[in-house]
């Protein structure tokens, strides 16, 4: 095993451990703001995994969109609503244990299925075209082959902006004209 492969191995398992730890912290913190911080850490780990997978444009977009826009929105809303920490009543503890056990079983079953069906391609034989994962390549695809999806996505964004504005502009007394 040469240095590149060793680096990739160490990098993948290191990032994977941090990502799983961050995800576990997201669902187990009592305060929502800590969950948000750990989720940002998880998003950065996923972006690092994208870099390992030669998806450079997507790694940057992941940081910009998910960690930079979506999580900023979450943190803003958490701080705006400013609630106290959540308590876990006794009736929920059994639900947590059941869900945890079911989740572990799900992971185990899916692991067996994945190892059985996903053929382990010899990664060393993969020819890496120089333009794989670059902005130019994905731009070319988006504007030629997937142009319709691109336009529909922009209409979806417009609908979301209008929807959010309509909902946010409404006050308890029944709305006001801007």
């Amino acid at each position, binding site marked *: 095993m040469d240095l590149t492969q060793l680096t990739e191995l160490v990098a993948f398992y290191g990032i994977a451990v941090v990502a799983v730890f961050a*995800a576990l912290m997201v669902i187990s913190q009592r305060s929502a703001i800590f969950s948000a911080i750990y989720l940002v850490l998880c998003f950065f780990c*996923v972006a690092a995994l994208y870099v390992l*997978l030669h998806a450079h444009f997507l790694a940057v977009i992941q940081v910009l969109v998910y960690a930079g826009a979506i999580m900023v929105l*979450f943190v803003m809303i958490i701080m705006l609503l400013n609630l106290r920490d*959540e308590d876990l009543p006794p009736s929920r503890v059994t639900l947590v244990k059941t869900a945890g056990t079911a989740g572990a079983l799900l992971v185990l079953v899916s*692991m067996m299925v994945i190892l059985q069906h996903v053929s382990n391609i010899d990664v060393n034989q993969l020819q890496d075209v120089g333009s794989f994962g670059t902005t130019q390549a994905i731009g070319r695809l988006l504007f030629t082959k997937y142009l319709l999806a691109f336009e529909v*996505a922009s209409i979806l964004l417009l609908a*979301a902006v209008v929807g959010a504005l309509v909902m946010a502009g409404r006050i308890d007394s029944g709305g006001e004209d801007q």
Partner: protein
Amino acid sequence: MIGPAEYTILAAILFTIGVIGVLVRRNVLVVFMSIELMLNSANLVFVAASRMMDDMTGHVFVFMVMVVAACEVAVGLAIVLTIFRNKQTLNVDEFRIMKW
């Protein structure tokens, strides 16, 4: 060295953690964050498969999933804000307005 199986197993673990978060937590914002976790695990599978098949269609899929996730978060948080104005709680057990 690291094949698609390792990435897919990691995505399965993250997805399961997201599912547990949605089922167990009562704070609606943490439920939304667990949904984002699930979306990211699916994105990871797409990118891994795209690398292994040497086809960038997977990247376009991930792009669209990110667009949808951003829209969903914007509208979902606007809805949460509106409900919070009336009910002053973020407990999903209290969100029973549509119940007959």
